[in-house]
């Protein structure tokens, strides 16, 4: 059981990194608290697996330190870090039975055979592997193999954290949610720090209490799924979370309000104040497709747009509209009616987010700590 703290951590695979582009992980400080369920989310190549391997000790960081419960472990080998890791492709010892696979870490630690037996049976029970304990591990299906990989981490009492590296890649889609549920149950039961790497926002937000979203070697936001959705503090977070992602409109500030390429959006006092002192930074307005209001009738502050395309996805609809030169996507419920040609848009004030050079301009202190 451990709190994992990363201090001034940076990593480059190049021997002598010169440019910032040489870094797979840019300098960061981060804390994974004891007992938390965390996800490390990001597109492929953002450095999330590297970060995971640094924590488990498979990769040695070029700068900074990793501490477990305040003890620096930079020079502690993987074996001695008391970490369990589940890999993308199930790693099983295929000459052994399922039972022996689960018992393997305990036998390596010379635990008494009677204790091993009790522990293996307990874990097998939870993972629903009891009925196949005596089977050879190599002829099992991928999801069963992956469960064995997880089980090897769970049998150990001393384990400080379990790390998952895209563990559901090879699992059949209709089994995925079952395993996700298993994971969640295990976390609730054992109170172990768990870090889960994935590129799938559904997996991340289902599993984790808090998500760290990585982009180009940096953690751009760390927060609950809800925070990431409602209050993305980087345009990339807005784009990456949600399907479709956030509408991001380049804008400039004028006397009348926000200039969106020929369309003027009036702003209230608070918003003006916020945007006053950003200097020369490039401004972006972000609003989620879920929060854009579409109606057939003009009302106060509404903007005129043209409907371009409608996708009826059964449970919901995605409408693409043209607002000046911007394309905007709107997500509507199944029952909602869509105007045919001319339509009117409203951006609710609370859901309008402003970004200076891609970073969120915080409206007030309490917002950022939400």
């Amino acid at each position, binding site marked *: 059981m451990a709190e994992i703290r990363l201090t001034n951590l940076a990593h480059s695979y190049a021997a002598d990194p010169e440019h910032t582009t040489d870094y797979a992980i840019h300098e960061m400080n981060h804390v994974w608290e004891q007992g938390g369920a965390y996800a490390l989310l990001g597109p492929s190549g953002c450095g999330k697996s590297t970060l995971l391997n640094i924590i488990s000790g*498979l990769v040695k960081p070029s700068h900074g330190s990793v501490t477990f419960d305040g003890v620096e472990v930079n020079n502690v080998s993987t074996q001695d870090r008391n970490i369990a890791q589940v890999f993308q492709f199930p790693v099983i010892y295929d000459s052994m039975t399922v039972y022996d696979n689960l018992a*393997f870490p305990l036998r390596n630690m010379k635990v008494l055979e009677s204790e091993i037996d009790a522990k293996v049976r307990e874990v097998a029970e939870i993972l629903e592997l009891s009925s196949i304990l005596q089977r050879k591990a190599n002829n099992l299906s991928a999801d069963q193999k992956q469960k064995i990989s997880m089980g090897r981490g769970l049998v150990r009492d001393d384990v400080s954290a379990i790390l998952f590296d895209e563990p559901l890649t090879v699992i059949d889609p209709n089994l995925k949610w079952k395993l996700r549920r298993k994971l969640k149950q295990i976390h609730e039961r054992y109170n172990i720090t768990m870090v889960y790497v994935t590129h799938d926002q559904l997996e991340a937000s289902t599993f984790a209490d808090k998500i760290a979203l990585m982009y180009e070697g940096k953690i751009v936001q760390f927060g609950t799924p809800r925070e990431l959705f409602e209050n993305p503090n980087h345009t990339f977070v807005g784009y990456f979370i949600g399907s479709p992602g956030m509408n991001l409109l380049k804008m400039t500030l004028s006397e009348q309000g926000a200039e969106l390429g020929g369309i003027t959006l009036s702003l209230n006092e608070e918003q003006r104040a916020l945007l006053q002192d950003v200097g020369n930074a490039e401004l972006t307005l972000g609003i989620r497709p879920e929060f854009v209001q579409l109606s057939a009738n003009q009302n106060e502050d509404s903007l005129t747009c043209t409907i371009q395309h409608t996708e009826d996805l059964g449970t919901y609809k995605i409408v693409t509209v043209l607002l000046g030169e911007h394309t905007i996507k709107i997500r509507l419920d199944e029952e909602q009616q869509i105007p045919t040609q001319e339509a009117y848009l409203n951006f609710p004030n609370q859901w309008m987010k402003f970004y200076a050079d891609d970073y969120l301009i915080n409206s007030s202190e309490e917002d950022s700590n939400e």
Partner: protein
Amino acid sequence: MNKTQNNKAWFLVLPVFLLVAFSAIIPLMTVVNYSVQDIFDQNNAYFVGVEWYREVLQDPRLQDSLLRQFMYSGSVLAIEIPLGIAVALMMPTRGAMASLTLIVLAIPLLIPWNVVGTIWQIFARADIGLLGYVINGMGIDYNYANNAVDAWLTVVLMDVWHWTSLIALLCYSGLRAIPDAYYQAARIDRASNWAIFKYIQLPKLKGVLIIGILLRFMDSFMIYTEPFVLTGGGPGNSTTFLSQTLTKMAIGQFDIGPAAAFSMIYFLIVLLVSWLFFTTISQLDKDKTKEISHES
């Protein structure tokens, strides 16, 4: 991979079939024909039925060389397999050193077999050879030309020198094919080096080891040139193996009939062993495809 049924594929295989059939089936038929006749010359041959087979099977000389052959194949396998695995485990995995080791190891494989014999003939001689000189220098009486035990040991040592590399290279490539994740998982599971070897490396080497054992068994079973050059089969008959006996019979004494019958028995043994190995390998392949189809 699911292959498509296509009998036209036979046309692609036809050249190989004809080429191999020409060199294999005609001689094989001839051997069978010889084995049932007493042949004096082209025009004087008499049908003797299975007489030669009976004679050959009951001939103590042949029984001895068959026994010797099995002992020899058994002992070189017993040394070369573990040694080859050990060497493969010790080989560096990357960099210039890896290439260099690879080349050094492969050298014995590429030396003509009679040159191998020659090298050891020189190397092991007590008067001019390093090995023989050093051993005698240590006060041990060693002479492979007179002493059957010495001769036997030298032949085995030569085979180990010659062929362990094959096993080592096979295992080396097998080891390289193990994904890193396995080693990482083992480290996380706190496996000892021995446990890593036993539970990860050895199981993954099963496929290449079977191929290695097959090749080594077969090649040692038909070994001819190297011991012939080194010891000439002596002293006495102590290092006379099957192929030598056979060649002596067929070409030296021109006992074509018994030689042919003996060849057939030899061939049947080879066929049986090949079949056993082939069945094992395809059974393994089947397990592997089963595994893959589960994963996809």
